[in-house]
């Protein structure tokens, strides 16, 4: 299947899923579904660097938070400009703002992508556990910055009043956020899948397998790593951008929450990291499980479940659910990439 065909198919599937939620006719579906979809995007983004290139990022929460806080900053900008900018400039600002959610997703994604690029640049020579530690450090540094940045609320946090409805469609705002996250998930998955089947995907795989051999065969490993950290960071930021509107009140400890770092790793690992299916599967399973567990038991327990599952999979089934599936239903030959024929550009 070509990329655009896949994109249309994924759109159709998500359209059906949306129709399904309308049949249920209860806003709780959107509240819960939004979180699951947000994790689909986050896990897919993590997997571009962690699964395809083999670089484990422990700092996913930082990129998610960058997206979320860029939205807060943009949301508060008109207040700032009214106070400090001259009248003419302020009228321009008032004309442009408030920005729509999709625009804020693009901006949050761009900023997080730049931070991803910078992170990649600073950690180019780091591998394995050292890279992982560096990403963890990044999250700590960023959280400290945000805690001390009053404009976005500092440690007190910031309130974002969620509108009741959208100007374009007569639907509840939470339903609107759900639709947006659904589209974002479709885009992220399509991008991830197209990478897998492209020259870039082969390059990423060689980085995961053996960087010295990759260089020796002509793969510009440093440049490819930068592409991966940028793309991965950008999608994580996009996943976080609408979050302040979802949550209503954003504080550093929720934006930088442990749940994001853990889930971003656990979902692809449990699903399987070699293809786009893994993070999707892992996010839907774990995301749903956590939603159910936090409603019926508590959110602390839901994170515990994720942790235990992660330990189980890392030890028993390191290739995730997809790996288990392939072990039980082995193909006659290793997967050929015939369909890349039609897709080569």
């Amino acid at each position, binding site marked *: 299947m070509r990329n655009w065909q896949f994109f249309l198919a994924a759109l159709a599937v998500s359209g059906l899923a949306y129709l399904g939620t309308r049949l249920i006719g209860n806003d709780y579906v959107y509240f819960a579904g939004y979180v699951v979809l947000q994790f689909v995007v986050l896990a897919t983004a993590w997997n571009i660097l962690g699964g395809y290139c083999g670089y484990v990022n422990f700092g996913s929460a930082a990129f998610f938070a960058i997206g979320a806080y860029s939205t807060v900053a943009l949301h508060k900008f008109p207040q700032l400009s009214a106070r400090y900018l001259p009248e003419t400039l302020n009228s321009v600002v008032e004309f442009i703002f408030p920005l729509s959610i999709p625009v804020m997703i693009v901006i949050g994604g761009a900023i997080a992508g730049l931070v991803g690029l910078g992170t990649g640049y600073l950690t180019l020579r780091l591998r394995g556990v050292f890279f992982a530690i560096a990403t963890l450090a990044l999250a700590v540094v960023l959280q400290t910055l945000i805690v001390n940045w009053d404009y976005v609320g500092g440690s007190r946090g910031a309130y974002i009043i969620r509108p009741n409805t959208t100007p374009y469609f007569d639907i509840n705002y939470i339903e609107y956020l759900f639709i947006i996250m659904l589209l974002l998930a479709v885009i992220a998955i399509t991008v991830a899948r197209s990478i897998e089947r492209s*020259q870039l995907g*082969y*390059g990423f*795989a*060689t980085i*995961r*397998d*053996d960087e*010295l*051999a*990759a*260089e*020796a*065969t*002509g*793969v*510009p*490993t*440093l440049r490819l790593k930068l592409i991966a950290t940028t793309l991965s960071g950008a999608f994580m930021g996009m996943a976080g951008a609408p979050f302040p509107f979802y949550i209503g009140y954003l504080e550093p400890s929720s934006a930088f929450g442990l749940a994001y770092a853990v889930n971003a790793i656990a979902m692809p690992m449990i699903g399987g990291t*070699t293809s786009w299916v893994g993070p999707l599967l892992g996010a839907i399973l774990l995301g749903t499980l956590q939603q159910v567990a936090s409603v019926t038991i508590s959110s602390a327990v839901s994170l515990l479940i994720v942790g235990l599952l992660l330990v189980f999979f890392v030890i028993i089934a390191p290739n995730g659910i997809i790996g288990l599936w392939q072990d039980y239903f082995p193909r006659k*030959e*290793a*997967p*050929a*990439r015939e369909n*890349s*024929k039609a897709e*080569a550009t």
Partner: protein
Amino acid sequence: MTDPLLQVENLGKRFGGFVALDGINLDVANGERLGLIGPNGSGKSTLVNCLCGTLHNETGAVRFNGTPVNGLLAHQRTHLGMARSFQLPRPFHTLTVAENLRVPLLYTVNARPDTSLSESEIEDRCHEFLRLVSLEHKARKMPRDLTQVEMRKLELARAMAADPKLLIADESMAGLSQSEVKDIVALLIRLNERGITIILIEHIMSAVMSFSQRLVVLVSGKKIADGNPDDVIRDPEVERAYLG
């Protein structure tokens, strides 16, 4: 006289206090078949690593095809036309055997401004190189399903797939049967006749002697002999180095 394809000048490499390469000078002419021998640990692989950019030499200069390559990354040197096999095979273990060969085709051959292989041409070339090392029947297998010997062949095929001007084979024939050694030597000579310069590092003397037009001997990081293979092999210093 044309410039040599590869010029190595006073190349030195240390690992901590250990001198692995000590002032190596070496010119390799375009189209030459060079044998490089020396006892284990004499620095042959380290020399390859320094030439190809896998390791950085502290002293000395390397020019390839007229371009100084000091400071170039390994993949840039590969793009210029150097390719090497690793002594211990390093296949891409999550890619199939055929896909392993796609990598140099996509990233080196197709990166040249004057080439753009179509998908079917890439497929054809993969199979052509697999056929040359008789691995066609393993095209869809994963590297873990190969024997050590087959892994060596894959390693060599992947280097050839980069369509190099200079091919360096680092002990590709260890463990091969006599007839397989003959086949690989014949293959290397065929490649050489197509215009590829080849440096062969090998312990199997019959292979070295039938392949090489010129022989270089490395001992403890120093070049101790360089010349006509029959003369070099009778050099008393070389005999002493080999006999202990």
